[in-house]
């Protein structure tokens, strides 16, 4: 059965929800599913904005057909070609072979590279500022390169203020019958998954997001229609503020993330001791994570949120414990910057992890290591002589947080 929803006059959500996918992009775990959004505009001409993942292909086609209600599909606007959105393109072309496609030149090239056969006569390649009119509605195309793929663009309907924002403003989680952000308690149920989506998928491209946000500030947006997650029609200030923080790598909150890599619980014990001492000093906005059992996408996400991070790591094969090493590599890959860090190192014979973590941090931008050095060195286990060091690290963190 079809299952679409009306966004506003002439515009319908025709996407689908996937609760069976375990790993988004085959890397990021999903526990609450994800939605693939597509939209149909009914004007003098009919327009489909993007398609959907193969997993929801049948539902998507049913929804499109139902909204068209027998009318032919005249236009297909492709904002983003990543296969979770373009996978069902061929299904559309089989049913409506004469559909006129609108996309960037790069998008056409990428689609052909993914193996789709496209009839060049049916493709209109657009650039920044180009427009298209479908009757009542005129849309303008806004290039959004590297948010988060190079071919990406956004489409702004100048008639009703709808911005089809591609992957920007998207989120993990399925919609479960609802559609608008204001139909959820977004700040409670969604923000963590929205952050995890942004930071891990788009996090590296802060400058490019900034460039798009500057363009968006110039138009009067009434609806924000992303390719994943809910549609925004109010409280734009809330989500734009989050994007402003994330894309400039500015922490949302003053708080401390303690991430530990512990083989037999001794580094964990030190990390816990630090957290307890922080709490005793009134610093309670803290999070403690075991790097071995927490998927790195959650660590990245939280680190975009908090201002301070403590790396507590055992030495492993004269290097950093591999999951911690992976976390640091991911931080670098996602361009994470502008954080205050502290280091607790452990080892039983040649303690190396602190020095190596500091080196890894020096390869990132605007990272400050508190105390300019390894804060605490533990030899196998935290003993009486180390407690003062842990205490003074807690003092240093508390003092820095209160600045």
């Amino acid at each position, binding site marked *: 059965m079809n299952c679409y929803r009306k966004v506003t006059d002439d515009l319908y959500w025709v996407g689908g929800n996937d609760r069976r996918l375990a790993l988004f992009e085959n890397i990021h775990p999903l526990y609450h599913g994800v939605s693939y959004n597509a939209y149909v505009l009914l004007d003098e001409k009919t327009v489909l904005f993007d398609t959907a993942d193969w997993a929801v292909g049948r539902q998507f086609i049913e929804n499109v057909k139902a909204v068209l209600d027998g009318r032919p599909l005249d236009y297909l606007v492709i904002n983003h070609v990543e296969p979770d959105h373009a996978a069902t393109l061929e299904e559309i072309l089989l049913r409506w072979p004469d559909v006129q496609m609108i996309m960037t030149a790069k998008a056409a090239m990428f689609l052909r590279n993914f193996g789709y056969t496209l009839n060049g006569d049916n493709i209109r390649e657009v650039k920044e500022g180009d427009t298209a009119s479908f009757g009542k509605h005129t849309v303008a195309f806004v290039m959004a*390169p*590297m948010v988060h793929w*190079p071919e990406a663009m956004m489409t702004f309907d100048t008639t009703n203020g709808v911005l089809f924002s591609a992957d920007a403003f998207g989120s993990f989680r399925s919609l479960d019958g609802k559609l608008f952000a204001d139909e959820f308690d977004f700040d409670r149920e969604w923000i963590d998954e929205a952050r995890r989506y942004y930071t891990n998928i788009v996090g*590296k*491209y802060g*400058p*490019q997001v900034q*460039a798009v946000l500057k363009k968006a500030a110039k138009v009067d947006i009434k609806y924000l229609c992303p390719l994943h997650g809910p549609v925004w029609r109010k409280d734009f200030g809330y989500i734009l503020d989050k994007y402003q923080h994330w894309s400039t790598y500015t922490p949302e909150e003053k708080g401390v993330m303690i991430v530990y890599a512990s083989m037999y619980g001794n580094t964990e014990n030190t990390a816990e001791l630090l957290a307890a001492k922080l709490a005793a000093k009134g610093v309670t906005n803290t999070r403690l994570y075991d790097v071995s059992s927490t998927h790195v996408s959650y660590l990245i996400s939280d680190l975009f949120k908090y201002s301070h991070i403590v790396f507590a790591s055992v030495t492993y094969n004269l290097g950093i414990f591999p999951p911690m090493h992976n976390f640091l590599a991911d931080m670098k890959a996602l361009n994470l*910057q502008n954080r*205050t860090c502290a280091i607790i190192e452990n080892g039983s014979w040649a303690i190396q992890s602190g020095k190596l973590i500091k080196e890894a941090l020096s390869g990132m*931008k*605007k990272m*400050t290591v*508190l*105390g*300019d050095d390894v804060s605490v060195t533990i030899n196998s286990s935290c003993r009486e002589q180390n407690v*003062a*060091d842990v*205490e*003074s*690290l807690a*003092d*240093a963190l508390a*003092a*820095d947080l209160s600045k």
Partner: protein
Amino acid sequence: MLYQTTPAHEELRAKVRAFAEAEVKPIAFSLDKNNEFPRDAVRKMGELGLMGLPYETEYGGAGADVLSYAIAVEELARVDGGTGVILSAHTSLGTYPIAAFGNEEQKRKYLPDLCSGRKVGAFGLTEPNAGSDAGGTETTAEDRGDYYLLNGNKIFITNGGEADTYVVFAVTTPGIGTRGISALIVEKGWEGFTFGDHYDKMGIRSSATCELNFNNVKVPKENLLGKEGMGFKIAMSTLDGGRIGIAAQALGIAQGAYEAAVEYSKERVQFGRPICQQQAIAFKIADMATKLRCARFLVYSAAELKQAHAPYGMEAAMAKQYASDIALEVTNDAMQIFGGAGFMKGMEVERFYRDAKITTIYEGTNEIQRVVIAAHILGKAGKASSAPVQRQAETSIRKKILFKDGSAQDKVEALVAALKKDGHDFTVGIPADTPIVQAERVVSAGKGIGERGNMKLIEDLARAAGAAIGSSRPVAETLQYVPLNRYVGMSGQKFTGNLYIACGISGAVQHLKGIKDAAYVVAINNDPNAKIFKNCDYGIVGDVTEILPLLTAALDTGEKQPAPPMVKMKRVAPKKPYAPQKYYVCTGCGNEYDPLRGDPENEVKPGTAFKDIPAGWMCPHCGETPDGFIEIEV
């Protein structure tokens, strides 16, 4: 290239030569012998219009070209290498940075005096740990709002002490290597700016060379040249030009030696004829003349390129390197032609021989010149060259607060109050013989403690401060005031406790490394320039025999309670300032172009600004053209 100088150049040469022969040559021997700066001659050079040759008449310069300046240096050096370098250092090191990078106000303020020779200029870059590698600069200029607080010292500064205006390079943003260096104009006579003794040099003894010391010198903000962080660029660009001056100096020295040798070879008769008619000597002279001609063309050509605003860095380096290398050869041959007579003091060739050597060393050693030349041909070696040099003060980040106000008693009281405020509890103490490595506090004696009897002052202070006794290495090893196991230093015991009171310790690097991890360092020394003051938290400049008894009395609380187990005091280190840098991000793939790294794979040298990227360059990852990159500042 003309291959010939113009009549105007030759007129200038004749004028400078006449002056040099009349005013400098007669005194050159005594200047050299007495290590004396020719103040009168320098004043007359100003009157003759030689002190601002290549600068605009608008600012009091002579409006002549770079070649004229090179000829002037050459002619002065032809009679006295020292006088040559006075003009060279003044013109291309002391004046050029202001003329090239100064704003209108700075130019109006400083150039007329410099160009007229009323004032002499100098350039302060070299430091004990920063010579060929300016990234090691340790002199700091801390932003204090209206002014920079300048601290540090510069060594081997030509015209030092004699000059009135100094362009000094100092770190304004620590921890980011050469990008954190800025250039400041500093005037002689400012409080805290002092000079070390003149060096006793092998050659160019008529030029003044000394150490510059900066102790909390306030430099007004308006004396910053260019922008913060531009210092390295200013220094390198200045040295490029300076090399022409030194090349001209080397050329002049060699020319002087050559002429003297030719003259002598005509007069000296052996085996019945002048030695110049012996092939052994004639060939020598032929080689000397050929080398001189090569060097002259290199120097003049570099000067011409500079004048034409064409790239000349490589050519100036070639001129400097070659002219100075052959200056050694030519002066050596000249002395050989003179035989035993040349080896005698008072002979010009003996002086030329000594004067020549410095030209292969300063303004970039000839090894560095070859680095410069090779980099122009082959690109800079490796990415590592632009990596920021991480350096720390020897004893990590210190507060460097000196108590200066009031009487000795006032200073001691201020010190004790500060220590108590930091949490030092002087009601408890440790035995004086506690091993250094385990001690929470140490009172340590340096050579400045004086005679053995003064060790009583140290013992008293240690008792009053509840501290163990330590010393510098010479006090234990040479003076033997304390056993060898009491000395603190890299090769001795390392102190890692909470309070180190250094009494009469100058602060040799070896010693400072031994107290790197001390929580607090207090320095008491009568030399305000002692390095320990740059590496202490609190300091009092004063004599140990006066300060120590006062400090002992102030800390004395009678019998000390045994100290509880030590808790290491740790301070929150200040966050490192971060100098923003521009990057260029590709919209085709997200690749970042970092100007500091360049794109060596595609022959874009490190340090290439994005706008200077050669035409045809594309993103090495995705082929996007440069207009598809967005500029960001991080």
